[in-house]
């Protein structure tokens, strides 16, 4: 999947993603760049892609959301953002070179996964289990 048109750099930095595209993002709050690669339909940070098996972002779709999600009952976010929180992640909004914003879910080991990839994989898992 072409994740976005600009900001695509050929990845030659990691063994894990030697043939994958790298998407460059920046944090919105501090000028820190983050490279994202695709691993098994998940867009994750490059460090996560390198250590695959031990990366929480790649296994988080197996987690069931906790019921206590909303911190402030009157304020509601979009579903992928909410799902991230419900599996003990915290949302990071990253920005690409065209200023498009993307919602990433960060876990306690520091790994990042696109919140929509995570939400989508979780939904597929649940639907598959209920058949």
């Amino acid at each position, binding site marked *: 999947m072409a994740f976005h048109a600009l900001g695509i750099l050929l990845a030659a930095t990691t063994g894990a993603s030697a043939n994958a595209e790298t998407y460059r993002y920046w944090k919105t709050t501090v000028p820190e760049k983050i490279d994202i690669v695709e691993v098994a339909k998940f867009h994750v940070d490059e460090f996560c892609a390198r250590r695959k098996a031990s990366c929480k972002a790649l296994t988080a779709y197996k987690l069931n959301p906790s019921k206590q999600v909303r911190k402030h009952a009157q304020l509601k976010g*979009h579903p*992928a953002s909410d799902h991230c929180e419900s599996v003990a992640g*915290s*949302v990071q*909004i990253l920005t690409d070179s065209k200023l*498009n914003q993307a*919602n990433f879910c960060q876990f306690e080991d520091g790994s990042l996964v696109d919140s929509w990839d995570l939400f989508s994989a979780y939904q597929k898992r649940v639907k598959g289990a209920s058949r």
Partner: protein
Amino acid sequence: MKSPASLLVLLLLSPALWAAEADLYVLADSDFKASRETTHEISNMPPIKDQNGAGLCYSFSAATVAEQYICKLNNCGRYSEDDLVSPISLAGFSSNSAAIEDGGNPGLILAELAKGPALRKEKCAPFPPLAKLLRQSGGWDALQAKFSNYKVNQGCTTCLESEIRKYFPAHIEQLSTALQQSSFEAFLWEIFVPASCKSSQVIRMPPVIDKSHPVTGNSPKDRQRAMARIEQLLLSDIPVLTTVCIERKGQVCAEGHATVVSGIREVCNANGDCRLQLKVHNSYGLGWQMQNQNGWVQADQYLEAIESLHWLERPGQTYSEKKLARSSHPDFEVAPERTVRKSILSKPGENIRDFTLNCYRLGGTPAFTDSGRRCDFR
């Protein structure tokens, strides 16, 4: 006043509700292809935004429409941070100064934009600190408790300030003004949306007229008229802010959403089966766009949920008479705009600019005569 029908409340984390929203975004199978001839997409759309943990779809969508309007007038190419309008500051146009809450009416925001206000840039009233507060476990309650404590005991400004610093690391010039507010919501508003910004952090809204098209009926004809209006606007390169209903309780829309539609196309497969699609510019971030074929969803299902259309146009705007080239769908007929008034006179004290804009906004033509100013309707 908020209209109940267009009051938007964002999504609860309810699987059933998400399923209902997902039904809006029906994608075409991979064998359906688009062609350049049957595609019209507005080219200078602003970057995709992410509303994250806030029910502010209406103000994020309004910010997108405002940014595009300003960009188009200035023949802008690529957007820079200087071109981005603060969505949270626009939320205040929808109701009142304590509007950091769920739900709002984008039509009211566009109506305020037509008055030519100074818009705060994202740099002046950034969203991330508020998003962080909303996401922080117990953050809202802790801040509210410290604010109440300050109000009751008249003390510990530093306690309150240290709590705010968790979300807003920069110097908070507006803290003293914020502390004078009586309610917590008004206090938050002052913190996150400063009353004044540096001149470099403000964009003056150029002359513009806000228009809307309520979709009140449920008949196929009502939907077709809405579709005709959308097509006409898109082919005139005007993005359309749409409010959609996700969950209806009786006659009232209980859960809604707002997005911007920025393209229209027909896709067909090898069997000659063709579908009309709309491109949705959603404030759900880039991941949503890419998971949903860059926002291209089937028009039929989307139209079923549409509650109202809102857009911005320049004074004297004329619409394109072109139609999207397509093979199977009939041309939609744009409903004639009905007018009941013949003319209205300028109000005492109303300046020429306001009079002219209001007249255009109402669909009239300003006339300047020896006896005064008059807005004529045909």
